[in-house]
């Protein structure tokens, strides 16, 4: 290895960054967007841009859907109740053909038309933690590896840094590009350090039982349910009886759940074994006012509606784990903090992108002299994973506004077409970056600017919710926020493209 501690940390920082930077950028970018996943849902599924319900919603109006799920022998029937961020009710069950998702209008109880999109909560959010690679949990493990690398990068970055305090106040945008990207890398890295480290650690801690299964497997002899029963103190019969059974009043069970939690709002209703004589209704508590993401739930016997058990809180260590999970999930109700998370997430994206740029700028000349190909390969990787990821995301939004409801092509439904647009566009950005190395950054910045602006305009054209309108209705503020961010992103991308196309810069890159 390299001589000396600092030199070896420099080696680790450089190579962990170059090899895993693309993956890290994707995870940070998607995580940053997932801060507003419900708002993105509203933007991408115009039918759920609903005002908050005026009167309490009767769960009984979901009974026809419940009967459908019971008839389809679905193993579960799940109802996500409205929150401050999302007025629509989300219903989910499964049958042989797969899962069925339905949005319900809380004002009328009407089933809304299928929006045909995975949107924020079902595409962007899962991409953030498992990359949509389900086979053998490979997606989870890749994200876990990148997260461990991120923590190692955080630590090694501090060690190789010579003057942390000075660089805290140093930003020299007028200097050479290499100096500028290093300043930007240092400023975002130092200022964002506590957040970047903690958000990465808490993300890993959420999946502790996947990443470090050794302790629970050895202690509980591989029985995950035995561990959960021990940790959460709930023993709930899982099996079906095979005999059909009725279902007591959902509303009565919900009001009983509210009573045991002294009026707390509810987050979900989850029925295990719908239509069976041994069906169990689990009702979860809404933790809007606390950071922790608790497992508080009340359990009812389905046919009789009798309360079996309920719980509040967990043992101390598990409460720490739930606090860290809640710190990461930000399901609490706090708009200022939500925006701060979003901003700090963006600093993580800038940190990773400028790390790449610094690697490239400091090697460009030397590699050209020696005739090495490294810079060209890494530059393609960097362009595709940074601006390419932004283009793919914007293309996902544009496709969402262009595809008509119920669209089908190549045997794919509308939601799949959106996802394929994302991946194919992303792939194309890598091809473009390797094919036109000199102009890739600039051209991709222009593409981001055009697509982001088009997405905001298409939202206006296809839904009529232009900024003046969306800003004047409280329930359309998420739409206004998304449009404003799209337009601001478009402007930033255009300014970057203009600066990149200045003759001096292009000439210098060409020369190299």
């Amino acid at each position, binding site marked *: 290895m390299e001589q000396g501690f600092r030199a070896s940390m420099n080696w680790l920082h450089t190579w962990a960054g170059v090899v895993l930077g693309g993956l890290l950028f994707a995870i940070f970018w998607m995580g940053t967007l997932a801060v507003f996943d419900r708002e993105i849902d509203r933007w991408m599924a115009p039918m759920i841009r609903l005002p908050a319900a005026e009167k309490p919603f009767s769960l009984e109006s979901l009974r026809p859907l419940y009967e459908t799920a019971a008839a389809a022998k679905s193993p579960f029937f799940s109802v996500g109740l409205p929150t401050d961020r999302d007025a629509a009710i989300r219903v989910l069950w499964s049958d042989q053909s797969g899962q069925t998702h339905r949005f319900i209008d809380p004002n009328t109880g009407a089933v809304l038309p299928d929006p045909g999109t995975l949107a924020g909560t079902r595409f962007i959010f899962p991409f953030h933690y498992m990359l949509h690679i389900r086979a053998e949990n490979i997606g989870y493990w890749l994200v876990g590896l990148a997260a461990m690398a991120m923590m190692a990068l955080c630590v090694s970055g501090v060690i190789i840094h010579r003057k942390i305090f000075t660089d805290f106040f140093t930003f020299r945008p007028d200097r050479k590009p290499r100096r500028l990207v290093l300043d930007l890398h240092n400023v975002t890295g130092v200022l964002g350090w506590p957040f970047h480290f903690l958000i990465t650690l808490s993300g890993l801690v959420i999946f502790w039982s996947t990443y470090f299964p050794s*302790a629970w497997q050895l202690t509980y002899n591989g029985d995950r349910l035995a561990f959960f029963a021990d940790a959460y103190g709930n023993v709930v019969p899982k099996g079906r009886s095979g005999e059909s059974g009725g279902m007591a009043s959902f509303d009565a069970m919900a009001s009983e759940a509210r009573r045991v939690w002294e009026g707390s709002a509810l987050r979900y209703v989850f029925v295990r074994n719908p239509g069976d004589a041994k069906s169990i209704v689990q009702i979860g508590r809404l933790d809007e006012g606390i950071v922790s993401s608790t497992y508080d739930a009340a359990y009812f016997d389905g046919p009789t509606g009798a309360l079996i058990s309920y719980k509040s809180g967990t043992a101390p260590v598990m409460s720490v784990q739930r606090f860290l999970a809640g710190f990461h999930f930000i399901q609490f109700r706090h708009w200022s903090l939500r925006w701060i998370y979003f901003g700090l997430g963006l600093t993580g994206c800038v940190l990773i992108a400028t790390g790449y740029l610094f690697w490239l700028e400091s090697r460009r000349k030397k590699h050209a002299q020696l005739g090495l190909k490294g810079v060209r390969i890494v530059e393609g990787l960097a362009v595709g994973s940074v601006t390419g990821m932004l283009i793919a995301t914007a293309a996902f939004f544009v496709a969402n506004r262009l595809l008509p409801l119920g669209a089908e092509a190549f045997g794919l439904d509308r939601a799949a077409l959106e996802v394929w647009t994302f991946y194919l566009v992303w792939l194309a950005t890598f091809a473009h970056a390797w094919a036109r190395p000199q102009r890739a950054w600039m051209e991709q910045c222009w593409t981001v600017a055009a697509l982001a602006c088009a997405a905001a305009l298409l939202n206006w054209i296809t839904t009529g919710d232009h900024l003046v309108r969306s800003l004047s209705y409280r329930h359309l503020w998420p739409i206004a926020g998304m449009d404003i961010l799209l337009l601001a992103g478009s402007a930033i991308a255009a300014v970057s493209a203009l600066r990149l196309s200045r003759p001096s810069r292009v000439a210098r890159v060409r020369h190299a």
Partner: protein
Amino acid sequence: MQRILQRPGARKAISVIVRLIAAIGGGYAASAGLAALAARVLPVAAAMPPSEAVVLASMLAFLVYLGLLIWGFAEPSLVRLCLILTAVGVVSWGGAFGLVRLASGG
């Protein structure tokens, strides 16, 4: 084959590959073993419920792994790195399995 191995570039590449395997794979195996051992020891030593010991040990394992990763890339002697990681792995996994066997009375 021998001539390729004698080239300085090849030797450096091999030592980097061995270090990557030792730090990433060996570091993981050692931290997972320490977590398993701690989950068996804490209920006895600190009178914690088993489920709490499991969660505490597993959460700390991320920080232990991070420390081992940093040390894995900083340790000048590759031989010492491999020896210590192997020793920690054998002792922790052996201890954890030994305690399981002891508890089941076998």
